[in-house]
């Protein structure tokens, strides 16, 4: 590297710093939390949560301030700022803020040392930021590992609880194994192209004629890393166990945050590394020999079907929601199948819908852990009478998860199906599978609904339950948009479509 190249590179690093403000704020938040945690030596102080909340809100403001930034690569094209990553960053901060809220009210964490908890949560969010904006195999790897390593610790955060420790152990073994596979896949991709930058990789793949089978194996192994983050078949096995064992706010977080980050990564990878990105209406796969849509379609169909089928047999609501979240990953994957613009924004729309309805459902689970001290569905009997507002909110979330009309879940599913059907006739079968799956999902969502409203309870349990005002407010925060966006979703839709813009230059 000669001196002018060094100078250019350094200059790029320095000029990129101004785009990095939200990340700096989160890093600062981590440090502040560490210092406060060390200096205040009291167990379970509310201050840590408040600080985390303030910090994440400031970061949110900083991300908002980036709305009008140009699409550009940062730090020698290691990361990128573009509307696509912007969209996801807002989603991540939204998840983080809510999970901080949930954690402050959660019974499971009460009386524990929560300093490290919020530090790790902040670090996970940082990792997700990088997952959404990484444009280099190395930064992708670092980002995934940041999210993974902190997630392992968060899953086993309840050290004294066996199921939490077990969840952490399984997550760790499965996670390190998956990143090992992904790493090997990266090495093969590097060998094929000689580059780590995904935009460059795309160009080299387009110009040289790579061995299709080798490329396929490389991407299959890489998919192990991405697939494990979004919990898609066949890399989903960890999810139910970890979701059940982890502290419930963390489960809620896992089911939306890292999953959305995985989707961001997957979409960016498939659409910029394996296809040529143009500002036009659609993308064209550069490697015609390998049929990525077919691979993704098979994975999507398997994911939704498996998640839904197993969910039917669950009695623990947390575990049921784990399987349902696997199924929803399958639905969201449908949008990525065709590598079209329409599909991508359908997926993004669906992720927001999923964020609302799934976090809402978990919120109900957390509230009910306090109210009825149980996660089992049969203990939700009579909830419609005992806590009408909670049950009504749950009903809204369940309807939305099922995809019934006048909820955002319906609109999201509709866009996905529409994108699929309009993308070409060869994937109508996948749309049919998805529709059949919604019917299957009805069976288990209806079970919860039935338990809450249609099953008789003995007289003992027929007492009204007291719900805290803050819980009511939180419920409203999720239930109202779930319905409102089901009727008037134009703003969300516009946001999602405007965000389908990747960094593609060099």
């Amino acid at each position, binding site marked *: 590297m000669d001196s002018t190249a060094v100078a250019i590179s350094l200059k790029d690093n320095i000029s990129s710093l101004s785009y990095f403000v939200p990340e700096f704020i989160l890093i600062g938040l981590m440090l502040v939390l560490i210092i406060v945690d060390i200096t205040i030596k009291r167990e379970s102080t509310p201050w840590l949560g408040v600080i985390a909340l303030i910090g994440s809100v400031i970061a949110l403001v900083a991300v908002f301030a980036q709305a009008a930034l140009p699409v550009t690569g940062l730090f020698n094209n290691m990361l990128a700022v573009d509307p696509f990553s912007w969209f996801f960053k807002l989603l991540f901060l939204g998840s983080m803020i809510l999970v901080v809220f949930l954690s402050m009210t959660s019974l499971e964490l009460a009386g524990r040392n929560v300093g490290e908890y919020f530090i790790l949560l902040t670090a996970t969010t940082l990792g997700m930021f990088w997952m959404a904006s990484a444009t280099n195999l190395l930064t992708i790897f670092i980002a995934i590992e940041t999210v993974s390593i902190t997630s392992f610790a968060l899953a086993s955060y309840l050290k004294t609880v066996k199921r939490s420790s077990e969840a952490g152990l399984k997550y760790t073994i499965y996670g390190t194994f998956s990143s090992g596979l992904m790493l090997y896949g990266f090495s093969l991709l590097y060998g094929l192209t000689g580059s780590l930058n995904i935009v460059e990789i795309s160009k080299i793949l387009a110009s040289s004629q790579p061995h299709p089978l080798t490329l396929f194996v490389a991407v299959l192994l890489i998919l192990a890393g991405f697939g494990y983050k979004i919990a898609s078949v066949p890399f989903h096995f960890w999810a139910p166990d970890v979701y059940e064992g982890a502290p419930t706010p963390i489960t809620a977080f896992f089911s939306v945050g890292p999953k959305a980050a995985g989707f961001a990564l997957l979409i960016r990878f498939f659409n910029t590394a394996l296809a040529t990105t143009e500002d036009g209406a659609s993308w064209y796969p550069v490697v015609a020999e*390998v049929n990525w849509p077919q691979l993704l379609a098979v994975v999507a169909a398997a994911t939704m079907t498996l998640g839904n089928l197993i969910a039917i047999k669950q009695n623990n609501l947390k575990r049921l929601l784990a399987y349902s979240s696997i199924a929803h990953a399958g639905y969201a994957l449908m949008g990525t199948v065709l590598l079209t613009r329409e599909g991508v924004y359908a997926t993004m729309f669906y992720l927001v819908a999923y964020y609302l309805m799934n976090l809402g459902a978990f919120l109900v689970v957390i509230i009910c852990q306090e109210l009825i001290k149980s996660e089992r569905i049969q203990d939700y009997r009579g909830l419609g009478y005992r806590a009408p507002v909670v049950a009504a909110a749950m009903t809204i979330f369940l309807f939305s998860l099922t995809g019934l009309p006048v909820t955002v879940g319906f609109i999201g599913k509709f866009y996905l199906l529409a994108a699929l059907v309009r993308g070409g006739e060869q994937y109508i079968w996948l749309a049919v599978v998805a*529709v059949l799956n919604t019917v299957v999902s009805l069976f288990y969502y209806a079970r919860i609904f039935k338990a809450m409203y249609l*099953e008789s309870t003995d007289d003992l349990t027929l007492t009204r339950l007291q719900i805290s005002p803050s819980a009511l407010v939180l419920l409203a925060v999720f239930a109202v948009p779930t319905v409102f966006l089901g009727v008037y979703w134009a703003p969300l839709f516009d946001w999602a479509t405007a965000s389908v813009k990747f960094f593609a230059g060099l």
Partner: protein
Amino acid sequence: MDNPILTQALIVLLLPLAAFVIQIFVGKRLPRQGDWLPTSAIFIGLILAITLFGRMLANYDPAFKISHRFDWINIGSLQISFGILIDNLTVIMLVVVTLVSALVHLFSIGYMHGDVRYSRYFAYLAIFSFSMLGLVLVDNFFGIYIFWELVGLSSYLLIGHWYEKKSASDAAIKAFITTRIGDIGMLIGIMIILATLGTFGFDEVFAGVADGKLSGGLLTFAGIMIFFGAIGKSAQFPLHVWLPDAMEGPTPVSALIHAATMVAAGVYLVGRTFVFYSADALLFIGVIGTITAFIAATIAITQMDIKKVLAYSTISQLGYMVAALGVGGYMAGLFHLMTHAFFKALLFLGSGSVIHAMHHAYHELHDHHSDPQDMRNMGGLRTKMPITFATMLAATCAISGVPFFAGFFSKDAILAAALEKALTSHNPIHMVIFGTLLLCAGITAFYMFRLVYLTFFGEPAKKEVHHHAQESPTVMTVPLIVLGVLAVAGGYGHWFEDLVTKPDLAAYATTALVSPAVPEAGHEAAHTAHTMAMWLSIFAAGLGILISTAFYYWKKFSAEAMAERFKPVYNFLWNKWYFDELYAKTVLAGTHLFSRISGWFDLKVIDGLVNGVAKITVLGSRLSGWNDNKIVDGLVNLTANVVGWFGATLREVQTGRVQNYILMALGAVVLLYVLQLAFA
């Protein structure tokens, strides 16, 4: 929104919604638990609908059609506008829906008095009315699907209103899920429309079909798929099993579901999208309708529960309407929908009145075991309940097709349409359809008069009960009288045929490429068919009534003896053609098959991975436990069980051991690689 008609229609639509919202939140705190609120909302709607109707009559125009669209969603280049469309058919439907709904509201004030969830009940009624009105008003497939689901949802709430009763909550779930199975088909059909035509609006879709953008086998397939929605909602064979169970809801709800709302939705859908169906799709529709009409009619002969008889008669009459549409009798089918709405609502409310009285009588006698709905416990009620009797008799005459009652005109029209089709099409299937429908007309007359004789004539089955029975309160009899008048007079004056025109696909064509529609069969043939059909139908009805009278009034023959003599047939009918059992049997056979497959699967595949013989034992014992379980209810359980079986088996894979997971993930990677090799 410049057009006053549109505004008015929109108000009719939104009033029940507003009532629902208020009622669900504050209904309990309102005076009288707010029952007046949805009731008055729907009555205002009724008045508005009637003025619309009057306006329509005053400025008579067969081609009257206005619509308004709001931009709603954009999917790329595709714009979905949400619009309402009003033509003569819509206005008539508005009147019918609001009328029946209003009367049901009124009737419910008496019937549901003192119910635990009285206020909730009225909220559900309101949302039901709203959904149905929306269904009538929207102008595109997408909107129809949304309201379609809403109707399903609100019917679920209403059927399950007495959810403390297990049978009621089961029936609610059964109705919801069975109809949704039909909805899947409908959604698939809509998706095909979207994929090929890129639009949802009725007019655009029909134009696309007329221009030949969607044609041939795919058009037929799409049509049949859309019709699947109607099969579910309108309780057509083979998805009819939910409707009789839906009787578990309060009786006014049954009236609402059966008369003008939920089950009518399917018929209305087929009517509204009539031009969309290719000839083959129409034949399919006609066959399904005929099968339904016949099966349900034969089942109704043997039933003893007064509401069950009416339920099967509804299914049968719906089959009539669908068959009529299938043979091209657009007018006849929809006309029958109108007249049927009147007399079926009347029959249900009348039976509700009877049950109310029986219930009351049992209550007085402190008898809590006897079934107030069993006709064997009734008899001789005509002296005790004269108004109920008179109105019920009128409705029975109407449904049986006795001349000069409303049902006569519409039923006659259907038979005429079927005969005309049979005469012109030269397709033997059409002849069979006509013959079966004619037979059904006779059977209908038979079982309806059987109902009247058993309930109102003869000696009371239990003297003391009879003694305590009394006429229902005015709030319940007024709706009966109103409907009674309509059941008598609703068919006169050719009003329906004058107002509604049969749509013509060619009219939608935007290009002139399409050959003009095949001209309708000559006036001559139609006239012959009409006269012939009229006499045949009178004959069939008369014969049915005669036989019924011979059995149940003159007691010339003993029904019991007949039943004994033709025991297999009787059992077959009494058990509703063993439909529920058939579905259950399929489940059992399926389970056996699955258990064998799964045993093999476990042995050969999972075992190696799971490395535990114990797993098989667990699975085996669970499956044998499964066989012991009494598996009862039809299609719902079939799907639920098969799906559940898969769930349970797949669940075994989640062993809890992380290294199993890793192994399986790697195995899947190898599998994907092999698949890629095989298909690339």
